[in-house]
């Protein structure tokens, strides 16, 4: 099961849940599962960046998620 962690600013969308475990093969399917669980969560998640096993993706979609993967949602970074 992959570990999925949400930052504070998304907790309003996850009913306060900070960390869940999900069996999922890729990021696209993860979003589908999360949206089913918390309708409406897809929109803020689409605006977030995500780190899968330490690698930061500003726009993940097709990225695979492994059985022991750690998935962290986080804010997108801009820059100067």
């Amino acid at each position, binding site marked *: 099961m992959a570990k999925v962690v949400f930052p504070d600013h998304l907790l*309003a969308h996850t009913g306060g849940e900070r960390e869940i475990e999900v069996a999922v093969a890729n990021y696209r399917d993860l979003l589908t599962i999360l949206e089913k669980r918390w309708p409406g969560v897809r929109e803020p998640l689409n605006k977030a960046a995500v780190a899968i096993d*330490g690698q*930061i*993706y500003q726009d993940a979609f097709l990225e695979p998620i492994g059985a022991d993967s750690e998935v962290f949602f986080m*804010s997108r*970074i801009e820059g*100067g």
Partner: protein
Amino acid sequence: MAEAVDYRYVGTSPVRPDGVDKVTGRAQFGADQNLPNMLHGSVLRSPHAHARIKSVDVSKALAMDGVHAAVSGADFPSVQSGEVGGEGGGDVADIAKNVMARDKALYHGHAVAAVAATSVEIAERALDAIEVEYEPLPPVLDVVEAMAPDATLLDDNCFTKNLPEKPDKPSNIASVMVLARGDLDAGFEQADVVVEGEYRIPMAHQGYIEPHACTATVNEEGKATVWCCTQGHFEFRAMTSKILNWKIGDLKFIASEIGGGFGGKTVVYLEPVAVLLSKHAGRPVKMVMSREEVFRATGPTSGSVCRVKIGAQNDGKITAAKAWLAYEAGAFAGAPVMPGAMSIFAPYEIENFLVEGHDVLVNKPKVAAYRAPGAPQAMHAFEVALDDIARQIGMDPLDLRMVNAADEGTQAPYGPKFPAIGFKACIEAAKKHPNYTKPVPEGAGRGVAAGFWFNIGMQSSAEVRINEDGTVIVMEGNPDIGGSRASMGLMAAETLGVPYEQVKTYIGDTESTGFCNVTGGSRTTFATGLAVVQACEDIIAQCKSRAAATWGMDDDQVEWQDGQAVPAPGVNADVSPLSLADIAASAPKTGGPILGRASLNAQGAGASFSVNFGDLKVDPETGAVEVLSFTGIQDAGKAIHPAFVEGQMQGGAAQGLGWALNEEYIYDADGVMENAGFLDYRVPVASDLPMIDTQIVEVPNPSHPYGVRGVGETPIVAPLAVASNAVRDATGVRINDLPLSPPRILAALSND
């Protein structure tokens, strides 16, 4: 750590391809585009920091001789809230209102109307003829006061975002954010020493030497061409399209050379106005800001108040850290407090922490990105408090940082585990650096601090074309602010195995090359570099198969070596290698012109850490600070063009030192900036600084073929705390706030 690889071109510092144009005055910058029949546009700006706009009447201006168009907020469509591109400026509905005020002027200098006339003088006189009726409102200028429940509101529809429940009342706090881990109370209980402080830093400007400028022309079909200085012409096109409600396909943007940006040229100010004026006038319109307008009406970075509390044991281990950040967003939401909160503890492994950030509206210009946006303010506070911890436990500041340093596998405070990073390598390099091992000069003080930036990837495209004689054209879409054409050329030469001199890099306009996000966030060498390398790999694959066809082999029987196709090892063939020039010459026979391309959304940007230190001397009579020496050490991943990497480190250090020692927006009680010029907003000049020593550490980023991390952002972060800590060391007095200007230092010394 990946092994060091020997490259032929990557890691050398040749002259840049645009160099000759830039030393002879030929290079065309934003204000250098003139068209026949061109008009000059000027902007009328609000004389109030906060006012309701009851009416704007441009008719008298329009009636003047030589005036051909006049517009105000009513001429712009209303814009739906949303983001543009991957980066820059916040909500496009806000950017639209920042470009031209609608019902409210939200800062002194906010654009209220604009005219186009046959000369600048006539345009300026026409501005005087525009009638605006204002209802002045009290300005909100202090970030902490702005947060109070009874504060005057900038926006009655601003309900704080990211709270568990939508608040029932609006406020000036646009959003909050929290990052937390562990048990803060338990952490502080384990501490032997606790340091706590509040640190204030006023707004500061990017201070690029070239003011914003553009020339727009709209033809009778309603198609516009815009020349402008920008960090990203594709995003300028997207913003202009949204703000005017025009199709992207009707807008062509051509990036001029750009005279500095540092984040400040990632967002539009003039372009939509110039397009609209040109449309109304039926003639080209050029708009150039004055320096005063640049200061009053373009994005500085946030002023901030940061409160920090750190607990540590006598062995240096940080047991708990807490931070409260309030950043000025200016007139519209979007202070970089989120990256500030994400970066404040990033260099360290801390078990128990809490950081709360606030994005706060005030009646000042809307902030824009500035080099590592948000990180310098927060990290200044933390690095200064850490310095006090080092003093209290009597530990070398580098040793203290080493005890707590993040490393590969450390869970970053913002979530994921770090892959290979170079922070420890930077501390070790600092410890051994001759500037650190030598004693502090008599009467001076030494300051040490760390810096960090995430770096970003995002979208890039590149095309590589092989000319008939085997010379190479690289085409990409990122304005070259600091020599990136040379870096692209080096990566292309290295990948293809051809001499650097054989490669030319061009920056295409929005219609001649594929989409690229802005030059910013230290992404260009990383992400666009990746696209260039992949486009070159595409070329190699094609060349191999053309060689195979020439020799009557299968593609996999050919290899690419040192810029030539050769038979793969074990393939028995009596043929001579085919160089890129050979293959190009016979291209008509093997399939026509050779063209490679790549487009991507680059992931896996590598974080860049730094350690800086400097020796500063304070004149107790005048309060003036002299920088005797400054050393920047930073992990670049891989320096493609080391001289330009050093240049980024030196330039960032100078900006950081300027911010620390002198630069600040000074406001009067009415919210009018009192120092809107380079005479009074004092950026460092040559005689203010010593040589800036640099050491590039190279811990390759595993996600880039040459290991690039991106270098432009991180260098501005550490110098702020270096200056504070050095002044503390020199005077024995801790001054929490910046800038460390002579009056502030004198006041602190006399209080002591």
